[in-house]
C-alpha cells in the first residue's frame, strides 16, 4: 500500500508538480535510482512496477494537479501522473483510489468499465453531530442539529 497527498500543493506560488511523488514511488516500488526520462516514460514505468503485485495506491487531493473548470477542466496537468492513472485504469492487479474535488476527465472514457467515480455527498446532520460529540464538543452538538431542523 502506497499513499501520497498532493493536497498542500497549489496553495503557494510554487507550481504544483507530481515529480516528487513519481520519483519517491519509483524508488519505493523498486527502482534504486529513477532514471531520467520523459514524463510519459516515467508514468509507464511506475505503472509497470505497481502492477507487479496487488497494490492499494492512494492519491489524495490531486486537484492542484488538475485544470480548473473550463475547456480542459479536470484534466491532469502532469503528464507522468496522467500516464500513470490511465495506465492503471487499463490494467491493474490492485486498486488506485483517487480523492479530488474535480472529476478526473482523463478517466471519463473508462468510467463505465474500470474506473468508476464515487460522488461524496454531504455528511448528515446526525453524523456531523456525532463527530462533534466524539470530539468532546457537546456545546455545539445541539446547534449543529438545530440548524438542520430549522431549515426544514
Amino acid at each position, binding site marked *: *500500500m502506497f*499513499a*501520497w*497527498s498532493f*493536497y498542500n500543493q497549489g496553495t503557494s506560488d510554487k507550481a504544483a508538480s507530481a515529480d516528487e511523488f513519481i520519483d519517491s514511488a519509483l524508488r519505493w516500488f523498486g527502482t534504486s535510482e529513477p532514471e*531520467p*526520462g*520523459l*514524463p*510519459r516514460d516515467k508514468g509507464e514505468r511506475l505503472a509497470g512496477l505497481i502492477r507487479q503485485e*496487488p497494490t492499494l495506491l*492512494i492519491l*489524495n*487531493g490531486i*486537484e492542484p494537479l488538475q485544470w480548473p473548470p473550463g475547456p*480542459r477542466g479536470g484534466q491532469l496537468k502532469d503528464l507522468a501522473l496522467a500516464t500513470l*492513472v490511465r495506465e*492503471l*485504469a*487499463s*490494467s*491493474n*492487479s490492485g*486498486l488506485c*483510489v*483517487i*480523492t*479530488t*474535488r*474535480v472529476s478526473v476527465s482523463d*478517466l*471519463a*472514457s473508462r*468510467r*463505465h*468499465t*474500470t*474506473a*468508476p*467515480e*464515487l*460522488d*461524496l*455527498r*454531504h*455528511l*448528515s446532520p446526525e*453524523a*456531523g453531530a*456525532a*463527530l*462533534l460529540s*466524539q*470530539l468532546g*464538543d457537546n456545546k*455545539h452538538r*445541539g*446547534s449543529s442539529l438545530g*440548524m438542520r431542523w430549522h*431549515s426544514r
Partner: protein
Amino acid sequence: MARTAPWWSEDPLDWTRTEPSTFRDILKSAYASPEAILRLASQVGMLPLPPRAGNDGADEWTWTIETAVAGRWLFSLFDAVVGDPTKRLYHERLWNCLTDAPASDTADAAVGLQTINLPTEGLRNAAMAVQVAIDARRRIAIIEIAGRAAGTGFLVGPDLLLTAAHVLDARRMPPEPRGAVVAVFDFVPQPGSSPAETGVRVRIVNTGLVGSPPAPNEIEGKASDLDATNEHLDFVLMQLERDMSGDETNGPRRNFYELHADEYAFEQAELLHVYQHPLGMPLLHSSAHKPIKVNSGKTRVRYRANTLPGSSGSPVVDTNGRLVALHHFAAIGSNQGVTIHKIAASIEAKRPLPRLAVAERRARPTRVSVNRLPRTGPFFVARRQEIAKLNECWDDERTHVVTVVAWGGCWQERSRQSMAGTNGVQKHRPGLQGVCMVVLQPGYQ
C-alpha cells in the same frame, strides 16, 4: 467554425495549450542544462540566452521556444534536435507535438485569405497508424454461436465484449442465442492450424449485461432506420469468462477500447476504419471515406465502406484509434453504425455492472507507506456506504481505479454561513478541519 491555428503559429504562445508545454517538457528532458540549450540556440542562429542561477532548465526553454516562435526559428530548432543522433528517443514525440494540431474546418479553409498554416495536414505518424492496426488485431474477436461464426465483437473492458445485439438475437433483449457463445481472438491464418484450431477461444458467461435492440425496420431488414431513437441502439455488452485485457498470448497486452461518452465530430473525420470478421473470415480491414453523415438524433452514422454479413458488431475507429461507432447495418449505397457516445450513455445509465465472475479478494498488502498522508483524527464518522463501496471496488478485479469526488472548500464557506456551531469548533480547534477534510474531503451542509 473558427479555424484552430497550430500552437506554434501564435505569437505570443498560448502556454495553456497542451502542445507547447509538452514540447518544452520533452526538450527539457533532452537538454536539461542551460549550456546545452545555449549551444542548440546558437547553432540555429538565435541570440544566446543568459544563464539563470538555480534554474533547472524550464525557464530557459520557455524563453527559447518563445524566441524561436517569434523569430520563426522553431522548425530550425527542431531540425537541430533531429540532427542530434544522441537524442533519437525524443524525435518522434517532438514531431507529434508539431503535427497533432486539430483538423482544419473545410468550409473556413475555402474562403477568405488562404495561407498554408498547417503544412503537416494529412500526414500521419506511421508508427501510430501501425499501433491502431495492432490494437484492432488484439482486441477484436469472431463471435461464434454453437460453433458457427455469427459476427464480430471487441473488448471494451477487461472481461467485457461489445457487439451488435442482432448478432445474438434480433428480437429479444436480453438476447437468447441458440447455443453456447464463444469469442475467438487472434483469428488470423496460422500455418499448420485449421480454422477450428486457430485463435484464442474464450467462453462468454453472460450474453446480456446491458443491451438495446435494433430499430423495427432494421429487424425486418427492409431498410436501416436512420432516425432510430436512443431505445434502439442495437448493441449488447457481454461478459467473458476471464479478464482478457492483460492477456499476452500471441502478442502484446490486449488492453481494450475506451467508451467515450462525449460526442465525436464525425463531420470533421477524414477517414474511418472498420476492422471486421465478415463471413467468418480472418480479420479484415475496410476504409470508410467521406461523406460521413450522422442523423439528427446522433444515434446512427453512415459511411461508405466494404462490409459483408458477419461484419456486424465490428468497431469503427478513427485514424487515431479512437472507437467512434459500432458497425451494424449495410444500407443502400452506404453502411451504418451506431454512435459510441450513445452506447456509452446507455451503459452508464444501467450501472453498476455485475462484478467479474472470477473475482477473488485480493491479497492483503504487506508493505505500507502512508506517511505522506495528512494526519487525521483517531476515529471515523459515518461514510459507511462509501466505505462499503470502496471495499466492493477492492474486491472487484474489474475495477482498477476509483475516484472519490467531493466539492471541498464548502466546509469553510458554509460553516460561516449556516454552521455556526461547527464554525465555533473550528475556531477553538483549527486542526479539527483535517478530521473531515483530509480523509474524504466532504463538504458540509
